[in-house]
């Protein structure tokens, strides 16, 4: 059990790095997912096709393949994802600016992958709004944009919150994979590091790592349960 106390800073560092990845990836995925969702509900057929293709591709690929594409495909194209070295962010999330690109590659893969699920969560919310609501809005003469902004989206938001939360929880769990793709020092890589190279006993390390992930996922899941129960009552 000593390893938990001796190497507490390693565990805490891993937790912090995983949290950083999840935070950045969540923001990126929410933005990209919203854009794809807009494409998927747009009135222009080719744009809808683009959105649908995107979702179908990324929903049916294992994240591992997306990560391999990012980690091997981008360098083959001569890109180190330097566009993610955004000056302000770089100073807060120091890993964004390092010369080793794997943090950025992992981030890109997570964002691309999760965006497809975010899009589906948002779209299922829009679909959950009764058709009569949008019809009534149209018959009042609201334009497409007004209809979305004042009638459909406020209602769809309610139906989307819980699925969105599940997607974010799944993303936190998926982020464990980047540790196996060259991101040094996140929680999952810490597990590998301490047991194989560090030679520490397995069980305490496993407990430490598990607690790290459970701290992130379980409270979020409990919060979602509460929101869901509340909504069920409200309905």
């Amino acid at each position, binding site marked *: 059990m000593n390893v938990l106390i001796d190497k507490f800073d390693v565990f805490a560092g891993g937790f912090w790095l995983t949290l950083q990845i999840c935070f950045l990836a969540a923001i990126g995925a929410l933005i990209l997912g919203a854009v794809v969702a807009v494409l*998927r509900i747009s009135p222009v057929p080719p744009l809808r096709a683009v959105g649908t293709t995107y979702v179908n591709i990324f929903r049916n690929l294992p994240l591992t393949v997306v990560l391999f594409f990012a980690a091997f495909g981008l360098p083959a194209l001569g890109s180190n994802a330097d566009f993610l070295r955004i000056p302000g962010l770089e100073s807060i999330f120091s890993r964004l600016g390092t010369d080793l690109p794997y943090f950025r590659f992992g981030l890109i893969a997570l964002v691309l992958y999760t965006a497809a699920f975010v899009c589906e969560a948002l779209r299922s919310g829009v679909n959950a709004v009764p058709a009569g609501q949008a019809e009534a809005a149209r018959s009042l003469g609201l334009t497409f944009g007004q209809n979305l902004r004042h009638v459909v989206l406020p209602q769809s938001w309610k139906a989307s919150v*819980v699925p969105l939360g599940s997607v974010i929880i799944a993303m936190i769990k998926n982020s464990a994979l980047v540790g196996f793709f060259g991101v040094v020092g996140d929680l999952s890589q810490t597990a590998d590091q301490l047991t194989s190279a560090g030679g520490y006993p397995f*069980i305490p390390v496993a407990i430490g790592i598990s607690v790290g992930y459970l701290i992130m996922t379980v409270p979020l899941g409990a919060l979602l349960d509460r929101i869901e129960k509340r909504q069920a009552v409200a309905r």
Partner: protein
Amino acid sequence: MSQQSSVLYDIPGPRQRRVTLISSLVAVVVVLAGAYLFIYRPLADKGQFSMELWGPLVDPSNENFPLVWDRIGLGLKNTLVAAALAIVSSLVVGTLLAVLRIQLKSLARRRFTGTAAPLAYLLRGLSWVLAVVTRVCVEVFRGLPVVITIFFVARGFPEFGASFDNLWYLVIGLTVYNSVVIAEILRSGMEGLPGGQAEAAAAIGLSPFQTTGLILLPQAFRIMLPALISQLVVVLKDTSLGFIISYEETLNIGKQIIGVLGNPIQVYVVIAVLFIAINYSLSKLAQYVQHRLSQGRKSAGTTTPTPPPAALTAQAEGAGGP
């Protein structure tokens, strides 16, 4: 899509159709130009379309073609074997877990009035403890990433002198996670059933166990079939994590091929297409089953037990797996 259009837009008139047509053309041009500039050009500049790189994968006359596809075939077979074993064992364990949790929940509510007071308290305490223990297990294994579970299984089992083939580490790791998810899917399905079902079963004298096995579980399976099929997609995707414990599944084989031929983008494109083809058809199957089920309910004229929100959540969560 048709349902989507009917919610947000009216049937377009002549002017709207014109606007849609023009913006469609503009969109097509923009998308194609974007694809050319940002995808085709960089790839072509790097010579990624050369036959030297693609040949072994697409050209049957290439000397490496049969070898490469032999390996990919082996990888696919291993992927499917692992996925099949994992889904079967998670279904079995998940069903048992769901039944156990439902039984424990009803046991914890029982007061054991027929027995002596100390024994009754003991039984109540015991069933409460068991209910809490299963609950904690479910929460823990649902909250851990699958990669970590597989990694722990592969590292932890040899520590206790239980070494297996890599395949079994992968299957056990996947089962631990997915059986818990499936148990939750089934449990929410059973709890979402109308209360009258369990009451009627009790009224005709079925024991709690029979009630679950004969009345609740079959209905839960039926309602949750689409969610269960989506979980199958998740399992299939998750088998690709076998590469971290060097199980020879499709991705691992791909890596070996890349090591020899040095064409990462091309090999990953082929693997991606394979995965998309399999998983897409599975998702379509889930949609079809859902459609069939909703039709069946309508024609039967029975009550329509819509899947409870928890089921949808489980689906979303499952679908978010790697």
